[in-house]
């Protein structure tokens, strides 16, 4: 096999065929599905959930993962927090000419490994190659399909007193990526938290009927996700600043660069809003799972005249939080 990807790998000819057979089918094990132009499935379900996401992370390899792993976990988590059991994924690659086949193989193997871990099957794929400089390494799109056999989430029943739980520390992914980019002049040994959350979420949903809503706080962070919930369902959520689980390194980098951890992206965390009577139950189920050991109650749904997200600071005052505005930028001094 060639050492680097060339335009010929995407032209549908011999090299493309070689790449598909020797790399993709080998890793994904979907030889039968690949014989037709479309994967054909039989599904028995009350409802079907579909989600799609494109991944353009830079650098493509980072501490704790790579773009391939992220492309699986991102879509699996979107399905899982919607209350679905993820079953199938399709994967589309846009590859920059010149990408080393060794790197591509690493990425493809990560996709296969993460899919196996999350118990989802990759059933269709596509590869395009663009000229050098027209993309950065590789971009990946994944579309996921899941089933819902019993709708358990009832966000319309969110009420005053409900508890807000986060499954672990916030901001790890964003800071790991930022330091991996090498532009900050700051080195950390932080790893991205990217992980498939569906099995942990299934543990929770099997134990309680009282989860009202779930969200995975990716871009825009915890605050943006909670602002969306508060607006969509016309409720007030109050966070306790002192309860937020934040790693010391994340906190330290934020202090230096002027970021707020509540606005930093996560790729392996889930927010639950649950009836307060099941708060401790959900917490203990999460804490028994390796991905949820730092789970905490971080706030409550409150009575207020105006809906939105509030935060009680460590000193006891309250402030209103908005969505993240603009890109995250460092301060001058």
């Amino acid at each position: 096999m060639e050492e680097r990807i060339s335009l010929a790998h995407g032209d549908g000819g011999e090299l493309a065929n070689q790449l598909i057979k020797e790399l993709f089918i080998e890793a994904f094990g979907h030889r039968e599905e690949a014989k037709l132009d479309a994967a054909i499935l039989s599904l028995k379900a009350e409802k079907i959930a579909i989600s799609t996401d494109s991944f353009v992370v830079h650098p493509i390899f980072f501490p704790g993962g790579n773009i391939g792993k992220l492309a699986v976990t991102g879509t699996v988590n979107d399905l899982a927090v919607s209350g679905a059991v993820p079953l199938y994924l399709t994967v589309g690659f846009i590859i920059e000419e010149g990408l080393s086949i060794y790197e591509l193989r690493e990425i493809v193997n990560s996709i296969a490994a993460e899919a196996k871990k999350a118990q989802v099957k990759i059933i269709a794929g596509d590869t395009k190659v663009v000229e050098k400089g027209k993309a950065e390494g590789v971009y990946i799109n994944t579309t996921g399909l899941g089933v819902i056999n019993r709708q358990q989430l009832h966000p319309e029943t969110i009420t005053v007193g409900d508890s807000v739980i986060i499954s672990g520390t916030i901001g790890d992914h964003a800071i790991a990526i930022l330091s991996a980019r090498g532009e900050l002049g700051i080195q950390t040994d932080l790893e991205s938290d990217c992980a498939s959350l569906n099995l942990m979420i299934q543990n929770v949903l099997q134990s309680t009927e009282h989860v009202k809503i779930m969200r995975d706080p990716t871009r825009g962070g915890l605050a943006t996700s909670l602002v969306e919930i508060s607006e969509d369902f016309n409720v007030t959520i109050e966070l306790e600043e002192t309860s937020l689980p934040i790693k010391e390194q994340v906190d330290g980098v934020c202090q230096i660069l002027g970021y707020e951890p509540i606005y930093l992206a996560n790729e392996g965390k889930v927010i639950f809003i649950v009836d307060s009577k099941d708060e401790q139950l959900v917490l203990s189920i999460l804490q028994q799972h390796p991905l949820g050991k730092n789970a905490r109650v971080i706030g409550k749904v409150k009575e207020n005249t105006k809906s939105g997200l509030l935060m009680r600071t460590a000193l006891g005052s309250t402030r209103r939080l908005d969505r993240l505005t603009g890109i995250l930028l460092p301060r001058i001094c």
Partner: protein
Amino acid sequence: MQKVLTEASNPELARKIIKQIQKLSLTYKEKNGRIPALMEVCGSHTMALARTGIKRILHEDVRLISGPGCPVCVTDQKSIDSMIELAKQKNRIVCTFGDMMRVPGSKGSLTKAKSEGSDIRVVYSPTDAVQIAKQNPTKEVIFLGIGFETTIPVLLAAIQMAEQEKVANFSMWLNTKLIEPILTYLLDTGEVNIDGFILPGHVSMIIGEESYQFLIEQYKIPGVISGFEAVEMLSSIYKLLKMLIKEEAFIENDYRSVVSYSGNLIAKKMMSTYLQPIDEAWRGIGVIKNSGLRFKDHYQHFDAKKKFNIEVAEPVKTKCRCGEIIRGLILPEECSLFGTACTPIKPIGPCMVSSEGTCAAHYTYLREVN
């Protein structure tokens, strides 16, 4: 280091100091018939006081006036327009700190110019811009040098690097500002009543405690150099109130782990080697004598203002009241644009976009919760 930071933001300790401040404020009020008015000079203090909730908690006890220490906010409109125009010209790479990107000019911003094809890059250190110049020898690379004394040595480190490595295609558009002239201006005009200053920790690291003696000698106004954690800022407010009640005026260094009496002598030497004072225009204020810096003649090949002839029209006037906000005359909420026409997403003035701007602090942290 983390332990020091944790202690400095210890909420229990902070709450104890808040109670003490409230007591002192009552004593002051009994004596003077009003609450004390303190100015936090630095934009980072404005942000930290708002974010931690100190401004909200103490609003009936101490009038905390935001001062002119946000470097982006005090840059006058014509300079902002010139920088955007500079970036639009061909064969240029303009490098900047992130804060400048969304600052609104008369016609668009650097972000808009970038989306229209100008090569504008956000860097974390000015020396990164020198590296970019070395990698792009056929292009002119210009760094937008905005900042107070804290930032100036960092800018000069890039100049020193370009000088040593003979990088001829690198230059800097300097719009630096100095703290002493603006404080003198505010006190001389007497537009706003200031009983004491919460002095900027980072600037003081460079200029040293000694640079504020003029506040005592000429104006008899006390100042405390403060850190940025809740406990540090509260401690400084407490010390100022103590002095005011005793009718004493000193400069106290409450940030000794970072600030020395004479400041950073190497940085000061660098500044006097490369730069000399110049009259500088401040947004909403006008020109203040010797309040900025320019390259000395020997180093004028690094001066982007000399190297490139940028001409812009007189700026378009808006209803933005940044000028009055910077001088502490009004609160952001008193500007008719605040929170409606002017928000962080669609800023009209730099105070709303800068991460140290007073309007941004009020919008982000101090809006009503009910």
